[in-house]
Each structure stands twice: as C-alpha cells, then as structure tokens.
C-alpha cells in the first residue's frame, strides 16, 4: 500500500443550522488522482476548504503528510476553489508572480509553458478574461509548482467541452510532478473518468462509497457516472 498524503478521521463540519460533513473518514494515497463525486451540497467544497486550511473543522482530525492543517500544510497544498479567487485588477503574470513569492519551488518557466499551453497571454488582465480562460488559469496556478497535494474543486466549469479532456490529460500526464496527489471534484464525471485512480462518493456529508476506480468498475460493472447516479438514488 502506498504512503498516505491525506488522512481524515471522523471529520465533522457544522455551519449555523446545517451539518456539511458528518464524520468523514478518508485516506488519499500519495501520488494518486482521486475523484470526489457527489451532488450539490454533499460537502465536497467544504472538504476541500478544510484540506486547504481556509475553513476549520468542527471536529475530527485531518493530516497532510502527517501534519495537522496549518501554515506548513498550506505550504505543500495547491488549492483552486470553485469560485474565481483571482485578483481581477492583476494581469496573469502579476498574479503568478504574487503566488510565486509564497510557494517553494515555484517554476516560472513551467508557468510560462502552461500559459502558452492554455493559450493565454501573460499580460492579459484577469478581470477581462472569460470564465473559461479563468478556469484555465486555475490549472496554471495548480501545476506551476511541485505541491504535494493539488485540490481542484470543479476546475472544468466554463472550459469548452472539446478542450476538457485535452487539458486534463496534459495536466495529469505531462505537467504533474512526481508523487503529486490530486483530489478533483466535478459534475462532469465522464470528463475525468479515465484519469481517476481512486474515487470517493460523498452523499449528504458522508462517504457513501470509496475505493479503487478500476476495482469498483469491475465489481459493479458500471461506469463512475452510473455509480454516482446509484449513490444519489
């Protein structure tokens, strides 16, 4: 068994009036691409935020490379939320330079290569980018440095359908550094089906099903999309 990058034990997150996560237990193996699937409100984004260290859990333990969530884990985690969290007044280059100041091993040459691959111009102002272009920028930010954990929350939204698979393939197969663990959530399950090695289905704040993607497909004779429908029903 591979070493775990992420270990989550009995994770609970309560917001005022709602319980977003109800005792989640999870283990993400180092270097694996894991798909986090579930309907709206199932707790996916909350789980991402807790792993990224921007939201605190109500209860439970979360470890990244054996460390509790804090400054040290944020130093090895690339988090791209579902919303546009970029500064609209910055150009792409300025945004990348700003982030480069904080993350060890940030590779400007790789960032430029990725910018070119994504067909973006470094001098373009972020506020003037389309939704799809901003989604592409998220990938540039996520893969320009050798983080241990990449958290991609709905990264494909806004990207035109023909480009989705091409971008995902390039990121996972070409631009991913060795042993980088990726956790990705999306409603577009078919688009990531071929890339995910592990899969976790969240339903109503709980892990409904998890395991090796190939094993689950073989055992159940269903695609991940079909399994998601089954979980939701």
């Amino acid at each position, binding site marked *: 068994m591979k070493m775990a990058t992420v270990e989550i034990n009995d994770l609970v997150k309560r917001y*005022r009036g709602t319980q977003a996560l109800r005792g989640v237990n999870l283990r993400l193996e180092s270097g694996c691409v894991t798909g986090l699937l579930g309907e709206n409100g199932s707790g996916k984004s909350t789980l991402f*935020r807790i792993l*990224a*260290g*921007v*939201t*605190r859990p109500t209860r439970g333990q979360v470890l990244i490379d054996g460390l509790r969530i804090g*400054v*040290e884990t*944020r*130093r090895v*985690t690339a*988090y791209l*939320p579902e*919303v*546009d*969290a*970029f*500064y*609209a*007044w910055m150009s792409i280059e*300025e945004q990348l330079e*700003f*982030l480069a*100041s*904080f*993350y060890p091993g940030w590779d400007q040459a790789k960032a430029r290569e990725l910018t070119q691959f994504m067909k973006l111009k470094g001098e373009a102002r972020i506020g003037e980018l389309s939704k799809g272009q901003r989604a592409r920028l998220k990938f540039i930010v996520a893969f320009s440095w050798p983080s241990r954990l990449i958290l991609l929350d709905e990264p494909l939204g806004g990207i035109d359908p023909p480009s989705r698979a091409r971008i995902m393939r390039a990121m996972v197969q070409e631009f991913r550094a060795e042993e980088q663990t990726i956790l990705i959530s999306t409603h577009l399950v078919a688009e990531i089906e071929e890339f995910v090695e592990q899969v976790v289905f969240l339903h109503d704040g709980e892990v409904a099903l998890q395991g090796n993607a190939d094993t689950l497909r073989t055992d159940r004779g269903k695609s991940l999309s079909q399994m998601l429908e089954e979980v939701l029903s």
Partner: protein
Amino acid sequence: MRYFAALYMKELRAQRMVAAVLLLGTLGIAVYALTGVGENPSARAALIVLPYASALGLPFLLVHTISGEWTAQTHYQILALPVPRWMVLLAKVAVVLSLGLVIYVCSTVFLQLISERMTTAFVTNKEGGFLSLMEPHASASSVWGFAGIVYGVLLLPLIGIACAAAGVRVMAQRFKGLATVGVFVVGGYLYAKLQAPVVGALVRIFGEWRLDLAIHRGMEPTSDAHLLLMYSALFAALGIGVGALLFERYVEA
C-alpha cells in the same frame, strides 16, 4: 519578511487608485491653500487643514480593504497562502499607515510653507486682522510636531479600533455589521475613558516634557501632547493586537 513584503506590495498596488486620488487631492488642496497666502493672506489658507481630515477616513479604507477580499472572493486565495493570518491583516494596516504618513508629509510641507509665508506677512503687516493672533515665529519643528501629534492622535486610535472591529467581525457568527459598529462605539468610549489615567501614568514614567508647540499667541506651551500621541500609539497597538489575534484564531472562508 519576504512574505510580508509580497503582501504589502500587493495591497499597495490594490489601493493605488485610492492612493492616487488622496495624494492628488492633498496636493491640490495644499497648492490652493498656499496660493491664498499673499501680502494680505485670505482665509483660504486655512484649507490646508483639510488633508489632515483623511485621518478620519483611512480607518474605513482599512475596513474596506478587508471586507473587499470577501466581496471579491479573493479571501480563498489569501487564506490559502502559507502565512499566518495576522500577517495578512498587518500588511493591510501597514499600507493604510503608509498612506497616512505620505499624506501627513505632503500636507505638512505645505503647512510649513504657509506658516513661513504668514509669518513674513505678519512681520510686514502687523495690522493684518486675524494674523495678529498668530505666533510670528513658529519653528519648523513646532509645525511638524504639532501637525504630527494632531494627525497621529486622530488616526492611530481609529486604526486600532478598525483592526479590533475586523477581528470581531470574523469572530461574530451573525450581526457582523452591528458588531463592527459596536466595536467602534466601545473603542471610542474606552479611548476617552482611559486617556486621563494612562496619560497620567505616562507623565509619571517619562516626566514633564514641555514641548514648545505654541502656534497661537497667548497659548501655553503644550506639556503632554506628545504623551497623548504615545497613548494613542499604545491604544492602536492594543487594537491591532486584538484584531490580529482574533483574525488568526477565527478567520475562515
């Protein structure tokens, strides 16, 4: 320090339009006021005090820059950075204080010029109306000291209160607006209430230090104005400390 510098530069660039407007406004008012001082100076020279009123607005700029991260959803990015959260807050405070310092320097350069020209006018025109109330030989150090004390006493406590309000705001689960207003009211009350005993204690510690800041004829040299500034700085430090502590402990997306 590298991280702080990056946050500071980011914030400075984010506020460049506000900074430009404030600085151009300050310079415009200052030049207009300066041109009002001739052989017969007009009351228009008094407009030079207007830029100092920025001390009342800058704390709200601080509140705005913090809440702006949430409005633009950039708080996801800033909170995910591998830095302590208090550093994010302090970088914003540092930018607002820098802006205040630049406004103070620009305004006071012109205030000193106006003071010198009015002194000259006073000497050459002793019958000159309200000029007879002016101290004819206010030194440069008096002008800079007096302006600095007035500006600091206005700006620093409000910055401290604004920081504490930012901390309370992230701690409050509901009624965030009300909590912010409440902190400003309570902070103002505490500042006024603690002033006499703390300044008194500072006098006991540092002793009397009579600053010759007489601007108007007949006014006694101010004795504890600098200690009032010191009290304001301590109050600001307390507010910033409380804000930073609460921000570090409670802020989340």
